[in-house]
């Protein structure tokens, strides 16, 4: 690590570089040395904002080194956009500091809550789809966009329960958030498959009904298998393994409707060696029509935006 990361502390200012319509990977500290050594052909990296809210040290040195070579997406997991109480202004300020420092191509958060009273639950918890929730979520998205001075993306959740009091369908709810706030959407294809299986609807119908014209980024991940109270399949959004074939098929369906979009591989538990993740990214790149291992670079305009990789 020492040979790659300088122990000096650069006061780096980054050019804003948009995410290319290529495969990206969720950044894990254990992979960083190898990524930098081999100039890994990855379109962009995504980090959880909360992991870079410390004052200094190794996390910032590593992310600075990555950011010098790749476009970046900053993904929040703790803003509690779907929560019933006001956003935490201290957390907003910390979030803005990360965004200002690294100038990411995209900034995203979840349709979920994680804080209630003064407890942070460290999980993405579900909200009922009601007019009341919609009003609150839109206020929170407005507040976050205004505070950051930029558009954010909101991600569709994976859920294990539904709420009897919901009066909106999820895809209509997501469309309404985007229309009312001007935010974009982050479409998590694995979440669609997990939720559709868990709630017994068709993921293909969901995708076709989704406001795909608002989608600016896709997520892909692996999930775990369980059974519910009545022995029906219950999928858990574990991010702990390879993406399954069903989800790859849904990804291809989505791309056929949206065209190429920045597509992130998420793997957050039981993290594999780098080549396993790189292979998942290469597979996504293949479906994006960007087989970087064999195809030449010309005509690849998105690639040129991140040409400083090499």
């Amino acid at each position, binding site marked *: 690590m020492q040979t790659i990361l300088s122990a000096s502390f650069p006061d780096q200012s980054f050019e804003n570089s948009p995410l290319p319509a290529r495969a990206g990977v969720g950044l894990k500290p254990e992979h960083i040395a190898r990524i930098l050594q081999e100039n890994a052909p990855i379109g962009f990296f995504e980090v959880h904002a909360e992991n870079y809210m410390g004052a200094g*040290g190794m996390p910032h040195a590593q992310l600075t080194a990555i950011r010098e070579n790749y476009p970046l997406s900053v993904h929040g997991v703790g803003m509690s956009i779907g929560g019933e109480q006001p956003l935490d202004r201290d957390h907003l300020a910390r979030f803005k500091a990360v965004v200002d420092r690294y100038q990411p191509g995209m900034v995203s958060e979840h349709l979920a809550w994680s804080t*209630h009273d003064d407890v942070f639950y460290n999980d993405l918890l579900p909200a009922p789809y009601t007019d009341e929730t919609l009003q609150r979520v839109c206020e929170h998205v407005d507040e976050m966009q205004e505070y950051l001075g930029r558009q954010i993306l909101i991600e569709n959740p994976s859920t294990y329960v*539904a709420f*009897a009091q919901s009066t909106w*369908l999820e895809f209509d709810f997501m469309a309404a958030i985007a229309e009312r706030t001007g935010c974009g959407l982050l479409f998590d294809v694995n979440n669609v498959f997990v939720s559709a299986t868990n709630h017994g609807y*068709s993921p293909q119908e969901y995708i076709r009904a989704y406001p795909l014209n608002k989608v600016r980024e896709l997520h892909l991940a692996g999930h775990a298998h369980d059974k519910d109270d009545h022995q029906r399949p219950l999928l858990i959004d574990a991010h702990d393994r390879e993406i399954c074939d069903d989800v790859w098929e849904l990804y291809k369906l989505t791309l056929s409707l949206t065209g190429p979009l920045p597509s992130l591989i998420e793997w957050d538990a039981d993290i594999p060696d780098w080549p396993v993740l790189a292979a998942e990214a290469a597979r996504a790149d293949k479906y994006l029509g960007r087989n970087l291992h064999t195809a030449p670079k010309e005509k690849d305009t998105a690639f040129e935006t991140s040409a400083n990789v090499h």
Partner: protein
Amino acid sequence: MSTEGLHKNTTDEPASFSVNHKFAPALLDPDLEIPAGMVGPNGNPAPKRFSVYRNNVVVSLMEAMAETFPSIKTIIGEENFATLTRAFIASHPPSSPMMQAYGEEFPQFLEAFAPLANYPFLSDVAQVEISWIDAYHAADAQPLDGALLGEIKPDNLMNTRFDVHPATRLIKSAYQLHHLFSSRENSSAELNFEKNENISAVLITRPNLVVETCQLDHATTPFIENLASSHTLGESIETAMQADQNFDASAAITLMLTSGAMTAISNTTS
């Protein structure tokens, strides 16, 4: 797969009750009833589905604790650690999305936890572990350049004060603290829980990006402690000599420099 689940629910449930208010406490307390209105496909109540959230929350917090406190986990064993962290999580859930700070109250919790009364050193070990995380994320600063000391006139040297590095931490204990803390590196090593005659400290520093730890002896402990609280070099040496008349000042100054505990000379006024 049917498309049934895509259709809207119609229900008499009032739309305005606070979901978070009922959902949240039940996440951390398995004895609390699952909130009404949580359903699976076909609108049936779904307790097992709700328990996925319970499990996610508790497991993710236990993992966070295990990442921050590997030495405690090694010393007391995996099973005891799980019991202990479950109790801690229930009484001290995180209050901030910045999870790096989670566990700050664990040393005090261990100290007050009656069944651990015979393991008083655990609290000190936990304090080193949480301080290690603190140092890892502390602000960047260049450590003091030893050459600058040589530029001070000999007459002024003893009146010199230093600025402490933002990552420097000193954890004092009556036990062989660094030895116990190092159990994270070697879980099979035999541990010595004997109390020392004197109080001494583990020094945590981060001269560049990598956190470093070392055991100070009982005289170097007040030496570094005094320097870190803006006492002069002379005062710090004097306090160390009171602790041990054989205190080796030049070795301690070398340690101050090589550890990166200080960043700059703050003044040399007499």
